[in-house]
């Protein structure tokens, strides 16, 4: 009961944030009815997927202060599980997704258990190394499609069990529901025991341990939850695109994007990942579409880099940090 109340109660947040959240819900609900452009709708769904990734990454990277750069492999493992089960044994989405999430979480657990012996930069580098190994493995593993990837068999008619729909509207609302669930979870999390433990470790690990908090175990737990979010996102990604390969779901670029987006929005804050996704995803897609067509390739990356530099130089807490500073001044 208490858990539910904590998850659904946003009462302790300032009015502005609650209004912002309401506008976000309204915007996402009405979006497919207002715009009919399929490109816009695709960008919107990507935005929602990245919200999900970011909200999950915020746990370990924001609240936990551990720069983990390997979300893509969790996304990928879940995506591959869902895709292969569907290709090999025709197992529906709703059965394979829990399995995919479990696979992603187990990977998080095993990896976290060993890697959290490392700290700071060493941890970040180790997660990158492991991601690269996994990606190479997936590229060269012919049994699971290798570099060609996996294509899902299409059903003749739209099928709810396999999450195959004719209109993107269904995907939009499903992704939106996932994001809402993630937000409710985070709202519970920030008031939970685990949330306080994690923040105390970020603040001062030595002192946290002197209070009897097992820092290693808490980090592993948080990393597993991050894995669940990534796994959920990966499963959805698979049925939305009907095609996955090691370059789209296992790529380091995806991991970096997730981390970057959260940091730009504001790591360690409730709304940071959403703000980050709101800026970076449209910027990435529209700019890519606009400039890519005109032959100027790479300008979007330059704009990224510029933003990262500005953020890291002026406000390490990201855009949310700037908002809070302005608020404190008034």
């Amino acid at each position, binding site marked *: 009961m208490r858990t539910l109340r904590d998850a659904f109660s946003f009462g302790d947040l300032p009015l502005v944030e609650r209004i912002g959240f309401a506008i976000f819900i309204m915007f996402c609900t009405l979006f497919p009815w207002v715009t009919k452009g399929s490109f816009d709708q695709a960008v919107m769904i990507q935005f929602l997927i990245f919200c999900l990734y970011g909200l999950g990454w915020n746990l370990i990277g924001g609240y936990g202060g551990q720069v983990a750069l390997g979300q893509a492999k969790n996304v990928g493992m879940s995506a591959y599980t869902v895709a292969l089960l569907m290709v090999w044994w025709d197992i529906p989405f709703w059965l394979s997704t829990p399995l995919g999430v479990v696979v992603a979480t187990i990977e998080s657990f095993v990896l976290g258990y060993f890697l959290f012996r490392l700290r700071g930069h060493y941890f970040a580098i180790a997660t990158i190394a492991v991601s690269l190994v996994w990606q190479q493995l997936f590229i060269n593993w012919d049994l699971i499609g290798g570099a060609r990837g996996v294509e899902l068999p299409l059903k003749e008619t739209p099928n709810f069990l396999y999450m195959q729909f004719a209109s993107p509207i269904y995907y939009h609302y499903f992704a939106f529901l996932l994001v809402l669930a993630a937000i409710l979870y985070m709202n519970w999390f920030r008031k939970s025991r685990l949330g*306080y*433990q994690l*923040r*105390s470790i*970020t*603040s*001062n690990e*030595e*002192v*946290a*341990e*002197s*209070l*009897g*908090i*097992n820092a290693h175990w808490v980090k592993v737990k948080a990393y597993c939850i991050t894995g669940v979010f990534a796994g959920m996102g990966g499963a959805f990604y698979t049925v939305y695109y009907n095609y996955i390969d090691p370059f789209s779901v296992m790529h380091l670029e995806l991991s970096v994007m997730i981390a970057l987006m959260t940091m730009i929005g504001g790591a360690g804050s409730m709304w940071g990942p959403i703000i980050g996704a709101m800026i970076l995803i449209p910027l990435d897609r529209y700019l890519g579409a606009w400039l890519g067509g005109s032959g100027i390739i790479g300008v979007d990356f330059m704009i990224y880099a510029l933003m990262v530099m500005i953020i890291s130089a002026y406000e390490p807490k990201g855009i949310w940090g700037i908002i809070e500073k302005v608020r404190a001044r008034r």
Partner: protein
Amino acid sequence: MLKVEEIEVRYSGVPVIHDVSFHVNGGELISIVGANGSGKTTVLKTVAGTLHPTKGSMEFENEDISASTTVEIVRKGITYVPEERRIFGPLSVEENLKLGAYIVNDREEMEKSLDYVYGLFPILKTRWKQLGGTLSGGEQQMLAIGRGLMSRPKLLMLDEPSLGLMPKLVDEMLEAVATLKKEGNTILLVEQNVREALEMADRGYVLQTGRTIHEGTGQELLETDIVKRAFLGL
């Protein structure tokens, strides 16, 4: 209660504690005094399990703790309040305190501890919602001690609680420590205000370059030459 015998502690191979022995009985206030670099903080950190002795033995309630981890030691009932008031800046006062009760699983028990700490340091109650980092130095120290008390430890180790506080607050802080002792807490205190620390202590130890060179009641130690010369300037 706590019995430390002839321990040697090394920092990456280099011994800094050569031969330290002391014991703490239940209900006592024990002061460890010594010059900077004599190893006081190292001794506390060793008891807290952050460091481990390479020689000698440490027993708490007749159980060997020389190889125990920090977490195990906290669970056994020893809490270490580190120097320089290391509180959690981004968390509120109450959140800081609740984290101190991390090993207490009973919600009611935790509320009781919270009331106890608020009773001891009323200023914390008026500031409960404020972020730890925005408190004044003295308040942060109270918060650090309060957080240490939240798990109701059998032995509370205080590392320089008056460090960096203004003189008026130093007295207040030491009075608070005396109150804690009166209420039956067992305290191991490391303090730079040697006179006050020894006056209020039941017993004390003098450390010099990693060795215990004197022990005795607070009064006895105040009259030894080394304390007079080195710390009191007499």
